[in-house]
């Protein structure tokens, strides 16, 4: 046993050094899915509700709005429910989960050598084009997420796992919308 660990030692050190230089490969998708499924179950088991991302973003937007134009928030029924009167938009679990997502994403990327400032894009477009697409796509996505009362995590994942009909219909609609447009955008991605 002792000789075994002795021979392993330099290998381990070497591997450690390699991590800093090149990124580790991603998990097998099914393994990643199992991990995500366990996190999703833990969320339901501990708190009674699932995961979410866009809800926290929403509260942050309203937080800024409330700071800039409190009167406006108090006059708009939809915003009033989040930040009207003495309500604090930060007093919501959605915000803290969102902070966790960012922290977890950062930590995991860092430990796996994937923390790097870069722009991922299709081979035929410039970074600037990619940024514009991300901005426009993000705006459409953000709008749609609120319209559908949830994003991919809050509706599709969480609602899907507890078998909500609306969440399943939503999920197929997301894939449908993306596949319907994918052909026309093929030059941007391939």
């Amino acid at each position, binding site marked *: 046993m002792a000789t075994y660990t002795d021979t392993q030692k330099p290998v381990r050190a070497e591997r450690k050094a390699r991590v800093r230089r090149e990124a580790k490969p991603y998990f097998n998708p099914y393994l990643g899915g199992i991990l995500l499924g366990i996190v999703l179950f833990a969320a339901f088991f501990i708190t009674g509700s699932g995961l979410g*991302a866009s809800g926290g973003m929403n509260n942050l937007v309203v937080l800024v709005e409330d700071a800039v134009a409190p009167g406006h928030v108090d006059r708009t029924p939809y915003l009033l429910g989040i930040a009207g009167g003495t309500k604090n938009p930060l007093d919501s679990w959605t915000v803290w989960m969102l902070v966790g997502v960012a922290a977890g994403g950062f930590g995991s990327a860092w430990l796996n050598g994937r923390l790097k400032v870069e722009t991922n894009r299709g081979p035929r477009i410039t970074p600037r084009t990619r940024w514009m697409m991300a*901005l426009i796509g*993000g705006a459409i996505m953000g709008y*749609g997420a609120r319209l559908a009362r949830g994003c991919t995590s809050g509706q599709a994942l969480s609602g899907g796992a507890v078998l*909500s009909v609306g969440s*399943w219909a939503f999920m197929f609609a997301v894939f449908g919308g993306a596949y319907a447009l994918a052909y026309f955008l093929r030059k941007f991605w391939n």
Partner: protein
Amino acid sequence: MAPFPISLAQYLGHWGSYVVYLLIGIGFGIALEVSGFGDSRRLAAQFYFKDMTVLKVMFTAIVVAMVLIFGASAVGLLDYNLVWVNPTYLWPGIVGGLVMGVGFIIGGFCPGTSVVSAASGKVDGLFFVLGALVGIFAFGETVGLYENFWYSSYMGRFTLMDLFNANTGIIVVGVVLMALFMFWGSEQLEGIFGGKDVKAMPKWRYGAAGGLLALAVVVMVIGQPTAADHWARIAPQKEAQLAERAVQVHPGELLSLLYDSHVRVTMLDVRSESDYNLFHIEDARHVPLADLFDVVPELQAQPDNTVTIVMSNDETAATEAWRTLESYSVPNAYILEGGINNWIATFGEDEFSRISQSTSTDSLQYFFETALGSRYPASAPEARAIEGLEFPSKVELQIKRGPIGSGCGA
């Protein structure tokens, strides 16, 4: 049965409980990052059938969580009635989903993955997050223009079991089989469009698929606890509450709740239709005992600040109704103390005359010349009627599920 969900605020304090959500968020962020969801190309490849990671990860996560949730429910560790199930607003959901699909293929992310992407240094992820914030802002400003649509096709807590009128276990097994079929199809597509060697994919995935299916079958065989099973488990505690009169609410407390803007009150009047027509409290709904089951899904989907109060002429039928509500885990359910008779004695003694010598239980003790329903002053007493009344406060709002619904939802 262990209390479910754990009341975090009780142990950690109001703000302290958010630490738990922070930790869950960290787990969520890690799971997304290690799956490669920080890279927009990997996400977009899904829609060209080259790399089906998105579908594989999502559906694996859904079926794994589903089997664990219903497994925990089958053995009594978790109460599905208290789990937050996204309420169905069918058409806003479908239209919003299509819009999101368009945003997905243009922008290359969904909101959660864009946060992970931005946090791992990807500039396109950062732009997407900014865009999403703009879109969310735009929604808040424009939803007022079509609010009717946004609230349309509401179906409440509507599950696949309700849709197919099938047993939970069958649906669970069916969803697992569907997912496995989709995984098989995805791998074939990856072989054709992505040039991947399906044979080189790890063999352990067959074992995992078999294990998951076996677990789903076990969940089906055990079956989900019925309302009667649930009641059997909670009965000692609940009967003690009844005996201690911890859940019988004085008419004065009910009236003060009706005037409390922080609390929503749902009143269920379980008496006969004729008694209800003679007199009832304003806004009380007539739900005969036999029909109580039909309103349960609606009661379960109510916001957390809702108090449900059942009432009959005295307390007999109302107590029966309360037991039913408890067996379905309807949160914050109470009984009107002394029923409608006590309500009238408290707020309308001068208005009506008492029927003398009425001995039958749970019958109306007052005489009505006409059936005016709730058009009596005593049906909606003014707030000052509470003055001078003495009563203990028994209603305690218990937030039994994750506060205010889903992470993205309403």
